Structures are given as structure tokens and as C-alpha cells.
């Protein structure tokens, strides 16, 4: 951020600055999502005026962007549910197929916590794979593509922005989904009697 005096600006532009004509200063920032921080920094300089983000200032544009945010949240939520269900199914089938083995492990004295822990680790492994591959796909594939080929909409060119808070929420959501997806099937099986788990009766 730089502050330029009126006289300096006049020398750069090569003409007289009409005094007291400007009522607004527009500040362009590179990274969307950091507006509030910039507003606070500008106001901390002691400038007498109101600071508003483009979203607050934009009126209808702000509404459209909010709609995009809602759509993005919906897609995130649906993606998370789908990922959770897929992990649940994979682990559930795995647990059902290994019911007898789990029963034998319990019979020989392997603690329930060890068995539960091994399936939780498996679920978390899937979640970590999802986070790594998802991060690589967005960071090196989808986002660069949209930066080069933004969508042409009537309101202007629209590209993808991935906020750090969105990534954090997605990661936390996926880990939580993995824990539930791993825990439910294995708790279900380990609650069965050992005899039932091994021989199914």
C-alpha cells in the first residue's frame, strides 16, 4: 500500500488535480477475501471517511456474489456427504467381509480399541488421500484453468477463488466424516458377541 500526495500525483499525471472533486478512493487488492483487513488498515491511518468492501458497495453485485457463495457451500456440503457415504460403504463392506477375522482377533485377546483404531486409521487414510488429491487437483488443475479461462457471465468474467477458511472447513469436514464412517461399522461389529462374529450364530 502506498500513499501519494496530491502534488506528487499531479506531477505524475502531468496536469492539475481538481481540488476537492474526488469523493471516493477505490483500492484494488490482489486477493479476494482480505477486504476487511485492508479497510481496517486504511482506517487505522486516521483517514476521515467510511470504508466499505466492494461487496457492501456493489448492491446487486453483492447479492449475486452471495448467491455464488451459497451455491459453493451447497456443493461443498454435498461433496462432503458423498465422500462420507463412499467411505462408510467401503469400510462397511470391508468390516462385513472381515467379520470372522475380527471375531478371531477378539477371541485371541486383541483389544477392541486396537481393532477400532485400525479401522479408524484406514478411514483417516482415505480422508488424507482425498485431501491431498483434492488439493492438488484444485491448486494445480481447476483453479489455474479458471484463471486462464474465466467464465463469461453478463456481470463480467468469473473465476474461482479458494479461501483458506473454505479449505480448512473442507479438511475438518472430511476428517469428521472419515471418523464417523470408520467408527460406525466397526463399533457395530465389535458390539456383537465373539461367537456370533466368528460363526454367525
Amino acid at each position, binding site marked *: 500500500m502506498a500513499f501519494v500526495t496530491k502534488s506528487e500525483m499531479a506531477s505524475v499525471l502531468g496536469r492539475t488535480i481538481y481540488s476537492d472533486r474526488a469523493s471516493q478512493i477505490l483500492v484494488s487488492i490482489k486477493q479476494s477475501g482480505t477486504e476487511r483487513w485492508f479497510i481496517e488498515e486504511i482506517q487505522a491511518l486516521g483517514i476521515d471517511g467510511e470504508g466499505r468492501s466492494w461487496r457492501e458497495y456493489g448492491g446487486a453485485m453483492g447479492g449475486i456474489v452471495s448467491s455464488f457463495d451459497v451455491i459453493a457451500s451447497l456443493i461443498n456440503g454435498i461433496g462432503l456427504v458423498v465422500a462420507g457415504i463412499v467411505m462408510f460403504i467401503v469400510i462397511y463392506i470391508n468390516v462385513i467381509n472381515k467379520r470372522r477375522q475380527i471375531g*478371531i*482377533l477378539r*477371541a*485371541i*485377546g*486383541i*483389544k477392541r480399541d486396537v481393532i477400532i483404531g485400525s479401522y479408524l486409521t484406514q478411514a483417516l487414510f482415505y480422508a488424507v488421500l482425498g485431501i491431498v488429491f483434492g488439493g492438488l487437483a484444485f491448486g494445480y488443475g481447476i483453479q489455474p484453468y479458471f484463471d486462464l479461462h474465466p467464465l463469461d457471465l453478463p456481470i463480467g468474467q468469473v473465476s474461482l477463488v479458494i479461501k483458506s477458511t473454505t479449505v480448512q472447513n473442507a479438511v475438518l469436514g472430511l476428517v469428521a466424516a472419515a471418523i464417523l464412517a470408520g467408527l460406525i461399522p466397526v463399533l457395530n461389529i465389535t458390539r456383537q*458377541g465373539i461367537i456370533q462374529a*466368528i460363526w454367525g450364530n
Partner: protein
Amino acid sequence: MIKVKNLHKIYGRGSAATHALKGVNLEVRPGEFIAIMGRSGSGKSTLLHILGLLDSPTRGEFLIEGRDMLKLTEAEKARFRLEKLGYVFQEYSLLPEMTILENVYGPAMCLGRENDFRRRANELLEIVGLGERLKHHPGQVSGGEQQRAAIARALINRPKIQFADEPTASLDVTSSRIVLELFRKLNKELGQTIVMVTHEPDDEKYVDRVVWLKDGLVETVDIYSTGAVNKQASATRFVKT
């Protein structure tokens, strides 16, 4: 070592209730190799499962080394099974993803008592004749070899008692003989107490005592003289009154 008194096991409730054990009395002494025999439905597997802490009786008394097993919590039972009991199941019960060696030292790793469990697993696999199969996976060895690996696994934590549930039921004659001779060797040389359920009459010759069950009760106990090749001829049959 094991003492059960008036042991009952009832499955289900009301009119659907099945009385699997109807008051079994039994004592197993340290270093004994006993077989529990009887027809299908006689209660022999139920008795073995209760003795091995895999199932609980409906009522009765059950002591191992003087300790009341009916007072243990599930977690205490699991710890007791890991530390003091060994199991060999009817079907090969090894984890297919692990090698034979890993299968054998797995329970020792979980117990966390010894650091050199790999060496002990190696020794046990040598004893059961699988020294050349350490790195093989269960699917790469025969049924008899898998069962011998299961015996080695059952011995890894130096159990006080080893339970075997029809260990030769899935094996051919030669493999069955090898497995039973191995049990006998472990019993004689290591003093391992073994309780085995079987329905093969030929298995009698390997054991010290046969407990015959019928309709949930001990019908007779056959005691064999030790060391005799033809033990059946010298068997003394006591009819339980």
C-alpha cells in the same frame, strides 16, 4: 487348573429356550491333554467356548487357577485370553494379509510384554516345522501348515491353557496326524495344558482323558494310561453317576 461346577448354558428365552449345558462338572489338571467328545448338539463346543472365555454360562461356577472367571469384565476377559489362553480354531484363522511370521507374533506385539517377539515367533515356527515358511502368506501354504502356524500363534504368549476347537476337522489324514502329534509333543515336552474338542474317534490315542458329553451333561470320562501306543486297549471307562 480349570474347575467348573454345575455349569448351565441356555440359549434363547421362553418356549424357544435351548438348554445346551445342563449342569456340567469338570476339572482339568495342569499339564493335562483332554479331549471333549460327543455327538453334534451334545454341548461340546458350547463348553469349550465357555472354558475359553468366548461365551458366558447362564449359571454355575467357573474357576481358572482359583480365579472366578464369572466376575471378570469384558476388558479383563480379553486381557486374560491374551495373556493366559491360546486358541486353535477349526478353520484356518490366520490373517491373509500378513505373513506366517507376522500372524504368529501379532498377539505378542499386542501384549507388549516382550521385545524379542520376532525371535520367539521364529523359534515357535521352527518347532511346528514351518521354519522355511516364515515369509509366506497363509494362502501360499497348505491347510495343515496353516493350522500349525495357528498353533504357533496360540503359543506365542506362553499360555497356561491351549484350547482347540476341532483343529483337524478341515485337514486330510496326514495333516491331522501331524497336527495331533504336535499337540502331543507340546503337551509332553512343554507341559502345555490342552483342551480339545473333537469328534474323530482316532484322536483319543493322543490324549490323557476323554470327556464324553451327551445332551449337555458329562456322560462318561475315559482315562488312558500314559505312554502306551495302544491306549484304547488300556482305557478305563468311568461312568458318571
